[in-house]
């Protein structure tokens, strides 16, 4: 771009600043703007706590179920929604690769895919569509509010057993993404969504924070990996979503640790959150503490849909 701007130096400065960037989640240059296409897909990694405490019960959509069941519903539905975002002209395009990692059942984290995808690591949106593990039919509300029996897809089932090897899961995601980014250096930055109901049992706070920072420091030319952390309780009351400052959190070491582990969100995400909350634009932190399942849906929706809105038309 040649010389910018004519009449008013302040306007020239505003444009240069947006191109060069500072403030409100902007870094050295405008980021998180890479177009997602078949040639340039993005990536998502879900980390799901499958420890024994995920067997505690909660109310979700008016039904009693375990936290593990609710988390599986949220992530399976999200995988389905994400795949739907890739449908163009009746075909599912390869706009993302996704990995779902569970931690709890075994001493170290592992992939949770079932059916034809068992043993896979990355799964593309196209493969996801072609390899559904469980097909169910259930009444769903259509756009105009009518109930209609429609097929629902799922790719893994809920599990709750053992401890909480969260550090192992973060390291696994780091290794996966390091290799993925080497193959996709110009991609829209990958997003990692970690869903947990408790503290890690395989690391001290410092080591867990180190693992999270290593993950967050991975980057493509379009920006750093975004790490969302969601602590679910289902107990109701006291839920904190997308805080701006640590002071908004309860005086709780674990809440503060999750805050430090989570990414500062870029402006594209901040816009969604500000509109949702009907407040001025701020730089939010990608975390929830003591969240209910409907809050988790919101976090996952913002984390995935904002990225996929960059998909080519």
């Amino acid at each position, binding site marked *: 771009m040649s010389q*910018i701007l004519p009449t008013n130096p302040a306007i020239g400065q505003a*444009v240069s600043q947006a191109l060069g960037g500072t403030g409100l989640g902007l870094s050295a240059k405008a980021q998180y703007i890479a177009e997602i296409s078949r040639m340039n897909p993005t990536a998502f990694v879900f980390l799901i706590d499958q420890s024994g405490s995920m067997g505690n019960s909660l109310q979700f959509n008016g039904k009693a179920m375990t936290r593990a069941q609710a988390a599986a519903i949220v992530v399976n539905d999200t995988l389905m929604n994400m795949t739907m975002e890739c*449908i163009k002209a009746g075909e599912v395009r390869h706009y993302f690769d996704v990995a779902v990692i569970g931690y709890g059942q075994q001493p170290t984290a592992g992939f949770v895919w079932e059916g034809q995808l068992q043993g896979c690591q990355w799964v593309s949106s196209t493969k996801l569509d072609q390899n559904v593990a469980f097909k169910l039919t259930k009444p769903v509300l259509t756009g105009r509010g009518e109930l209609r029996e429609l097929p629902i897809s799922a790719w893994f089932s809920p599990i709750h057993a053992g401890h909480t090897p969260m550090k192992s899961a973060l390291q696994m995601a780091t290794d996966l993404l390091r290799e993925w980014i080497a193959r996709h250096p110009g991609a829209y930055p990958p997003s990692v969504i970690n869903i947990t109901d408790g503290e890690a049992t395989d690391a001290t706070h410092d080591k867990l924070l180190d693992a999270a920072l290593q993950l967050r420091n991975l980057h493509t030319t379009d920006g750093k990996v975004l790490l969302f952390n969601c602590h679910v309780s289902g107990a109701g009351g006291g839920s904190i979503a997308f805080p701006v400052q640590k002071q908004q959190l309860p005086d709780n070491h674990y809440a503060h640790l999750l805050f430090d582990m989570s990414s500062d969100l870029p402006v594209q995400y901040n816009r969604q959150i500000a509109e949702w909350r009907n407040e001025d634009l701020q730089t939010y932190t990608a975390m929830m503490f003591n969240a209910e399942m409907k809050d988790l849906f919101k976090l996952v929706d913002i984390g995935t849909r904002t990225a996929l809105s960059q998909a080519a*038309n």
Partner: protein
Amino acid sequence: MRIFVKGQVSPKPHRELLPSGRLSPTEDVICLFPRRAALSDGAGGTGVYADLWAQQLAHTLPEHPFTDNEALWQYVQRQEAPFLQKVEPLAATHALTNYKLWIEGSSATLAALWWRPLSGRMVAEWVSYGDSAVMIYEPRLHRLHLQPYLQPPDQFLRNPHLLNWNGTGLPPSAFCRSEKPLPLDGKIVWLASDALAQHLYWLYLSTTPPGQALLSSLLPRYPEAAPLVAALLTYSKHHRFDQHLAQLKIALQSPETFQRFCHQLHQQELLRRDDYALVWVEQAKTQQTKKPKANQKAKSKPFPHAAHPRRVQTGL
């Protein structure tokens, strides 16, 4: 009174190959009738079969303007059955597409114009829903008007309201129509899909200091718009708006010239990547009956240049 009406559609630059080997379809549709024109922009980001839904809406535009939002909604509902007859068999072959059809439906925007002679003048009425634009330009005054819904310039950066057969009604805020018949003399009317409308509107804004300030005020919230704003500000420094419009009018001659024009603008970062559609409606200039004097050259001024634009004026 003759009316010049010309419209073209261009697919987006670098269209994607679908897994089946087909090129992704163009979702902008225009339909020119003897006394009316419709432009519909299928929204690929919401629902399925946006291209077919846009065709359905454009091809069946009624002979008279919609009187209000409710009349438009009734028209949308009347299109549901014939549309579903076409797409249900297609959706039935793929579970997720079928699911998406019933959850999200199909979405498009609409801009439409009707014209007729009235008391010795040619007048027009228009209706729009969503971010497909109706733009009225007065070249002599360098004044551009567009529907109230699109006047906040950040509207082009937000998700627009859409016409969806699978909804429960139409939020009225996105419905706009002319208050009274608009005399066409001295005016050019464009129906434009969002990317091209944004290009024309923002280029127009970039010709005046208040417009420039308005564009730059968007950038803290929408940094992704900075390359487009910067390119338009630079371009408007060296090119007159009316000259640009003259080139656009020439480009409407054929689908190929229109596509080339739009894709070149995209290459120069002056137009974001999208499908492009434009309908240009103008009262044709009457033939000059007076012969020019022998020593006087006839001047061709298809777009009279206004004095330097004084202020941004977007109200209808």
